[in-house]
């Protein structure tokens, strides 16, 4: 008798909302046949904070701190996408120096975010705490820089409409350069710890395969899309700020399995370091901010702007009616679409792979539930 003909009674396991590896408050309704997943229904909304309703009652500047709390691992990138959207609405051009500063902090935050993604992914595969804590050790270095730049560890609230809150402090370029020098060999450490580990390879290769067509059809973005073999990065394809001045590659995967998604993130770490290096070298001495005023009144109109956040394309759709508050603000969060594909990916895999695939998608509940 073939194994595939054997079925047992379906077991319904509720994973979450409190579960060590659901990355926050996600609730998966798993239907199991033995250890095999038959179906997985995803329930979200356990962190729904009604950001979009808040936005309608705040001025444009007042909403910046709320964007910090969307994707709280990459606050700078959220700030950035939001202020760029508002600037596009206002047709405001920011000084060159501000653009460079924005690129530097956004890329630093991308490194911090990818480190967390790699660490939690390894944790989900059962490498208990060690890779995660190694990643946190390096992440602390980035946070230290941010702490000096804007005085906070997690929610930076650093970008302003028309520039940045403060200019970079004295001597920060030295520290950033030190960090780059420190970080490069550490990437090799991770390669040694995870990449060539036979158990890790066995667990990640050819599992959770996301094909190119499915990825596009599900509107997957970011590293997950690139891992499926689509060479697409907004920083390169629709360059904003000064990304077109820098040289960097877009790492892509082949199969779109867990290992490719991990690989793409690992490669992006070094690419981000490369961008920061070039930005530090080319930063012009100038004013960092233009005065946009505290009460911003854009003309009536609509704008959709998206930027490449570490998890994918973060878009802001802002409708203005000419008053100080946005009439409607829609946040198009990358994790939202990235999570939607989970049900497709986990059919037929083992329970252990569900958490692995979830970890490899690198979702964050803050921006899914908003």
């Amino acid at each position, binding site marked *: 008798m073939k194994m595939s003909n054997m079925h047992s009674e379906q077991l319904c396991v509720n994973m979450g909302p409190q579960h060590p590896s659901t990355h926050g408050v996600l609730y998966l309704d798993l239907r199991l046949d033995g250890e095999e997943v038959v179906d997985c229904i995803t329930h979200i909304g356990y962190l729904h904070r009604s950001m979009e309703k808040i936005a309608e009652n705040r001025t444009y500047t007042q909403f910046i701190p709320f964007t910090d709390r969307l994707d709280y691992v990459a606050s700078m990138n959220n700030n950035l996408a939001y202020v760029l959207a508002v600037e596009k609405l206002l047709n405001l051009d920011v000084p060159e120096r501000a653009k460079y500063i924005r690129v530097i902090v956004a890329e630093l935050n991308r490194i911090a975010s990818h480190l967390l993604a790699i660490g939690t992914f390894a944790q989900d595969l059962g490498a208990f705490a060690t890779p995660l804590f190694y990643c946190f050790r390096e992440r602390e270095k980035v946070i230290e820089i941010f702490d000096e730049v804007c005085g906070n560890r997690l929610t930076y609230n650093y970008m302003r409409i028309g520039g940045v809150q403060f200019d970079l402090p004295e001597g920060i370029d030295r520290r950033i350069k030190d960090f780059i020098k420190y970080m490069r060999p550490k990437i090799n450490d991770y390669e040694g710890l995870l990449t060539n580990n036979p158990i890790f390879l066995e*667990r990640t290769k050819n599992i959770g395969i996301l094909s190119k067509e499915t990825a596009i059809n599900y509107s997957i973005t970011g590293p997950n899309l690139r891992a499926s073999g689509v060479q697409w990065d907004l920083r390169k394809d629709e360059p904003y700020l000064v990304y077109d001045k820098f040289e960097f590659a877009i790492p892509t995967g082949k199969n779109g399995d867990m290992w490719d998604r991990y690989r793409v993130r690992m490669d992006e770490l070094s690419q981000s370091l490369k961008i920061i290096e070039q930005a530090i070298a080319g930063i012009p001495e100038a004013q960092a901010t233009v005065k946009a005023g505290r009460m911003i009144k854009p003309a009536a109109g609509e704008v959709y702007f998206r930027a490449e956040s570490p998890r994918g394309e973060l878009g802001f759709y802002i409708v203005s009616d000419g008053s100080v508050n946005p009439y409607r603000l829609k946040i198009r969060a990358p994790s939202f679409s990235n999570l939607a594909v989970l049900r497709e990916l986990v059919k037929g895999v083992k329970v252990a792979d569900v958490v692995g695939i979830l970890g490899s998608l690198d979702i964050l509940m803050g921006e899914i539930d908003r």
Partner: protein
Amino acid sequence: MVTLSSLIVMVLVVSAVLGFISASAMFLIWWERKVSAHIQTRFGPMRVGWHGVLQPIADAIKLLCKEDIVPVGVDKWVWWLAPFFVTVPAVMAFVAIPFGKNLIVQDLNLGILYIIAITSTGIFGIFMAGWGSNNKYSLLGGMRSAAQIISYEIPLLISIITVLLFSGSLSMQKIVTAQAKYWFILNPSLFVAFFVYIISATAEVNRAPFDLPEAESELVAGFHTEYSGMKFAMFFIAEYTNMFTISAIAATLFLGGWRGPLLPGPVWFLIKTYTIIFVLMWVRWTFPRVRVDQLMGFAWKVLTPISLVNLIIAGWFILK
């Protein structure tokens, strides 16, 4: 006929063994926390006693005075008995472990068989915990552990049989005596057996990378998800005691037991045992976990054939 004096001796020996077990388990818990912390570039417990040495004692006292929750819907008897079924075999195995030349509770002439037989019954407790908790995570953990332990028992036993071919006896003390000339691990065929034994024994005691029954990132806490307070502590102590037992067996069977120059026997025995435990900890805090089908595949497709071939080669050597 039990006389009073033999009864007193018995009580003394039993309390000595129990005392050693709890002390050793607590030491191991502290040590594991320190080892893991230093692997992760942390310090681990520091505030409770010197470098946190009193930490496991504090933990134990705290667990002792925690509320003992009996969830609604548990299979009462099974649920109650499970921690005892896990702990008692772990303790009973100590009867036949030789700590020194004369330091053994009872040198059974079927010593190793007894230990293997006793430790395998620990699975009943785990499965009872999984079944009795009436929790799906526990059930999955219990089922995984049953499948895992049955599969790994085979390569484990075959690797031990390889040793027995060379020692010619099942008695633990005689196995140690047989290593008077050289440690068994230096024999090429037993070298292979040693690794088969260590891998299957790691799986047997549910340590990472084979810690599927209590896989935290998948099954919350596995078979002991619903246990609180002292019952949870019993699972914890049993886990560390089992770890000590398998390492002690490895030290006895392959590393010459309590034999060693200069230092007294028990010291050598403990050094060897704790070295193996340290390696197990090192592995635990470095490797990711394997998946359940890979785990079974590894046991049946890799370890069992290797150990069988190894046994045949060893037998051929001896007959030659």
